[in-house]
């Protein structure tokens, strides 16, 4: 069974961010049969802050990071704060291991008080996940308060979920840099750590640059 991981950065309980996250997750799982794991970034807030000061992840944060790394697809949802994603949402992705999102299908979504911030998807979230080398689903979903009592949101949810499901299943799934290295017989691996054999590293320096 494929794995769908949802990162929801809502702060209140219940939160409309989580509500949107759940609807996107259900719609995606309905098409892929994927198992869903939800990460509430709020619950990791203190460990994330400590990760910045300490340099290492606490137990719950490490488990969340591993879930993200192992996911076949990701749904990320943030409330809009000061014309962008929330600081806590960004902080979660700041402390992820480098390359964790390489080639991974990601559906971006956001919630806000009014429709005036809907372009946050394309001005803030899309560049962030492009930088992280994720494959961002063409349709992002923005839900303002008014959308919860209006037409249109379910269709956008379905369209985005369909695109994510296609990326998760389809041939469009890009190999991540890591996968490429796993196929390289020259790479030395002990437990979770790997590197190129020393002779090879030394040789690389002898080649004229």
């Amino acid at each position, binding site marked *: 069974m494929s794995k769908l991981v949802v990162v929801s950065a809502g702060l209140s309980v219940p939160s409309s961010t989580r509500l949107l996250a759940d609807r996107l997750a259900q719609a995606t799982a309905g098409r892929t049969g994927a198992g869903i794991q939800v990460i509430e970034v709020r619950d990791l807030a203190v460990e994330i*802050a*400590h990760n910045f*000061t*300490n*340099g*290492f992840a*606490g137990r719950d944060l490490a488990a969340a990071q591993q879930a993200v790394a192992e996911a076949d697809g990701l749904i990320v949802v943030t409330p809009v704060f000061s014309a962008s994603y929330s600081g806590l949402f960004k902080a979660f992705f700041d402390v992820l291991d480098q390359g964790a999102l390489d080639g991974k299908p990601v559906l971006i979504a956001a919630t806000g008080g009014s429709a005036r911030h809907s372009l946050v998807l394309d001005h803030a979230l899309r560049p962030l996940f492009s930088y992280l080398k994720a494959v961002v689903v063409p349709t992002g979903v923005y839900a303002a308060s008014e959308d919860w009592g209006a037409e249109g949101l379910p269709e956008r949810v379905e369209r985005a979920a369909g695109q994510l499901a296609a990326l998760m299943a389809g041939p469009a799934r890009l190999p991540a840099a890591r996968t490429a290295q796993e196929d390289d017989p020259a790479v*030395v691996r*002990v*437990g*979770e*750590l*790997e*590197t*190129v*054999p*020393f*002779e090879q*590293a*030394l040789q*690389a*320096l002898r080649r004229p*640059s």
Partner: protein
Amino acid sequence: MTMQFGIFSVGDVTTDPTTGRTPSERERIKAMVAIALKAEEVGLDVFATGEHHNPPFVPSSPTTMLGYIAARTKTLTLSTSTTLITTNDPVKIAEDYAMLQHLADGRVDLMMGRGNTGPVYPWFGQDIREGINLAIENYALLRRLWREDVVNWEGKFRTPLQGFTSTPRPMDDVPPFVWHGSIRSPEIAEQAAYYGDGFFHNNIFWPSDHTRRMVEFYRTRFAHYGHGRPEQAIVGLGGQVFMRKNSQDAVREFRPYFDNAPVYGHGPSLEEFTRETPLTVGSPQEVIERTLSFREVAGDYQRQLFLMDHAGLPLKTVLEQLDILGEEVVPVLREEFAKGRPADVPDAPTHASLVAADEAAKAAAAAGTDAGAGAGTTAGASTTDDKEKETAR
């Protein structure tokens, strides 16, 4: 002696949060010397100084400091934590530490590191993105400078050398032992394993699982390169402790230093930090138990260094801590770590042991030539392998 115990200093100038007093650079430099002398006095084996090139750190010139300490000590091994193999000229490292080795009668080894201050690279004309490659190339050159009388060399990062002899030659033609320190780069563990050098994991800010993975990587690769079995690899670990007779007194006294420390202050609580990392604040007995547990993470190892002079602790307190460490903790650790330690797990290399291994290797090689067959002796086996590899290249 089975294991070596000692201290390593970062050399930071930090305000004492309980008094608001900041020592001058001169005071801090003299304090580092006093701490090193105390280490020998209380029976510790090693003093290692950091190397930094920016405030608030004072030790930019390790061999000057270690040379001075060498003159005032008899038994202490002088080391570094770490020597910047990335931004120092390997030629100067070869010269400086060979000079120190003679002055200190062989009581010298080094720990190579890449440094963690970004601007140091450009300040010394290097590029941080080449950090690993600088460590690999510079160290390869350093090894040759210490082992070959005349070196012709050309590389990617440094001016070529034609007919260069690094002076003075290493004492007894045996270079100082080298450790490689790295917190999270398997490339460096691989380098240490390749040469059969020591690997030091400065675990003081890291959960034990991470240390376990790094040490296991090094041990596995050490065996792969034919230096011995994984259990025979040369491993060092860090630690940081604060002790009082009663655990509660230690916690009460250390808490303001912890809460305001530049490195971990204003982050997780003292309790969380002591649970997740090797930091131990409590009675000498608690420090003993915690330190002994490192063996479960890293296996039988060779060198344990404690960070004692940090977070703005005043010199007087640090010296008291060293008294407790030397009198109550390390003697018990020596005894307990020796229990159940397999006889073929090597001691931490010293100049004397390296000279002996070198002579054994030469004798074996001579016997081998005479008899026309390899004389397989166990003594200094790893050094033999090392030498062969070196000449083969």
